[in-house]
């Protein structure tokens, strides 16, 4: 089908405007996820730009209602590809969920004590989390994404979402308790 050049351009402009309107409001969410997955602002910048161009290329295939989840899925995948290419040398901690399943109960810090954790402490505890735990925490606690959406974005079954969140929270709690204990 041959469209006149002018109408083709108008079509592209329309598409770009529609994309910007739908996707750009979620730029913060995209950047936040990329920042936590790469643990670096400059890298997050690069990954988000790449992810958005990728999203634009496949915008026609997006027919869903949940634009944020769609975009975050692309951002996450772009991050994973980027990490494989640029940080392949880094040791990846595969967390044995069975082995650490009793962790939550071993030492339970006081709720009041946890409230004293400062930003730096939280930041470190978060960055120490294995990636698969960090991403569910970021999606749930920072983005307020539902279990169903987390399952979609991270590509895991719904049942795994809750157990992963439980483990991730347990790890965070342990880590913070240790630091707060040292400080005390």
């Amino acid at each position, binding site marked *: 089908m041959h469209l006149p050049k002018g109408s083709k351009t108008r079509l592209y402009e329309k598409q770009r405007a529609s994309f910007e309107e739908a996707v750009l409001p979620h730029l913060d969410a995209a950047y936040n996820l990329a920042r936590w997955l790469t643990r670096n602002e400059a890298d997050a910048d690069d990954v988000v730009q790449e992810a958005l161009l990728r999203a634009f290329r496949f915008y026609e295939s997006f027919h869903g209602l949940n634009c944020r989840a769609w975009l975050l899925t692309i951002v996450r995948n772009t991050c994973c590809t980027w990490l494989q290419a640029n940080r392949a040398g880094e040791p990846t901690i595969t967390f044995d969920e069975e082995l650490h399943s009793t962790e939550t109960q071993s030492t339970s810090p006081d*709720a009041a004590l946890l409230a004293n954790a400062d930003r730096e402490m939280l930041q470190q505890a978060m960055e120490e989390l294995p990636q698969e735990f960090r991403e569910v925490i970021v999606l749930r606690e920072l983005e307020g994404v539902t*279990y169903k959406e987390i399952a979609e974005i991270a590509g895991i079954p719904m049942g795994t979402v809750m157990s992963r969140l439980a483990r991730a929270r347990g790890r965070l709690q342990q880590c913070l308790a240790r630091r707060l204990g040292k400080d005390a």
Partner: protein
Amino acid sequence: MRNVDCRQAQQLLHGYLDGELDLVHSVEMEQHLQNCGACKSAYEQQQTLRRVIGGGSLYYRAPADLRKRVRSELRRVNPPKLALNPRLRSIMSLATAAMLLVTVTWAVDRNWRGDATEAVVDQVVASHVRSLLVDHVADVASSDRHQVKPWFSGKLDYSPEVNDFAPQGFPLIGGRLDYVNHRPVAAMVYGRRKHVINLFCWPTTGQHSAALQPLQRQGYQLFHWTKSGLEFWAMSDLNAAELQQFAKLVQAAGTESSAN
């Protein structure tokens, strides 16, 4: 409603915390937490953890210039394609390229040939009209084909067949040198009652023969054909039927002469 024990409560705690439990489990958890201090304490810790993590200090907002850069990048890149898999897309672009090539080749060829033919027709018509206007139909006025044919030799790089069709009612008037299609060509002039027929012929590039093809231009009749490496144009203000009769005579004579 059944009671939830501590073990179950531990499993349901995070779902409860995130508001992801169905109504039944939610109520069960609520009741258990009211009755169990240990689980309630665990729940409160998790609530606090959620509050400190989600407090906002850990949220990284996109830098202002990132939004700008993304916008300008979007204006720089190619528009989105249909989301086909890359393999299919490459096959499709190959097919499109091939089709485009065929179309362009066909169009150019057609256009070029069409224009060329059209240009020749124009020149033939112009030549015929000119010959009548200046009342100079023949450079060599002779009904004797043995005079006309030698006259052309030395003036052309080919030797046209010259025949007299007086017995059939198309007497030879003479011969004329003309310039058509960027080359000097032979124009043989015949008469039919008061009408003049110009028969142009020159060597053609192809060796193929093309059948008689009638054309009309500015009220004139034209017949075009190619035979034995020569291109023929017969033109007159004569009616089409009679001009076709003449054209067929010329064609037949050529066969006889080449047979001789």
